[in-house]
């Protein structure tokens, strides 16, 4: 017994994510690009929800859509103050485009040709409760290390950005 993802929802969310990513690259305004990034993150959270990863969808909305977007907007406001810095044409960089297209094409080719991936989705997926229990038993030590990493990042960011006397 295998289950499938809701097709219409998946295609809508995938279209939203890809459209947002392309708009993020093609817009002239850095602030608009940030808002498009936010939209991509929200669409990804929707896909997580469709995949049965409720906790990750919540974390995605909190961390990426909340914190990262706001942090990026603050940085744009603090650094690109003049309008001509924040709004300007981005010419198409053909070299970068070719490299990215080559990479993506290679990955898609490998995906089609060389590996057999399962298409059916297993019917049962553990819920939020099992996720929490597993996180605080099996993954306890990595969890603590992750909190140390965040603490170090916090202190480092404060050290770098704070004060003119350094």
């Amino acid at each position: 017994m295998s289950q499938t993802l809701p097709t219409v929802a998946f295609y809508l969310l995938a279209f939203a994510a890809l459209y947002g990513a392309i708009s993020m690259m093609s817009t002239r305004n850095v602030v608009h690009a940030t808002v498009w990034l936010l939209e991509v993150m929200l669409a990804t959270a929707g896909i997580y929800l469709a995949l049965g990863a409720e906790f990750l969808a919540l974390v995605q909305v909190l961390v990426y859509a909340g914190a990262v977007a706001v942090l990026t907007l603050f940085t744009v406001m603090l650094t690109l103050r003049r309008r001509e810095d924040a709004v300007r044409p981005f010419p198409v960089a053909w070299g970068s485009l070719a490299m990215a297209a080559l990479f993506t094409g290679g990955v898609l080719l490998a995906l089609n040709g060389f590996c057999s991936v399962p298409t059916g989705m297993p019917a049962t997926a553990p819920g939020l409760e099992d996720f929490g229990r597993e996180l605080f038993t099996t993954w306890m030590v990595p969890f603590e290390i992750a909190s140390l990493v965040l603490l170090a990042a916090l202190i480092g960011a404060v050290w770098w950005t704070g004060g003119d006397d350094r």
Partner: protein
Amino acid sequence: MTVGLPHLLTLSAMLFGIGLYGALSRKNAVHVMMSLELMANAVNLNLVAFSRFVTPEAMTGQFFAVFSMVVSAAEIGLGLGLVLAIYRRKRSVELDAMQELKG
């Protein structure tokens, strides 16, 4: 027509490619950081998709995605702090302005 793992992997590869293009082509440090976030997002999508389709009971991919999110959150915090520090010294966040080591 059902949606399977290949669809998710294709979506993720496309998102990664768009992020790669942005990270390679942009001259603005903030925009480069945003493109890096897009790439990290695509990788997380891969992890969650594999977790759901291959080992849904163990949820290993979901935990990997959680820790990957921790690392990329730390990265964007430090990276944008670094951008602010560079802006304070140089009054610019253009990558072309940072070429002291260029031979």
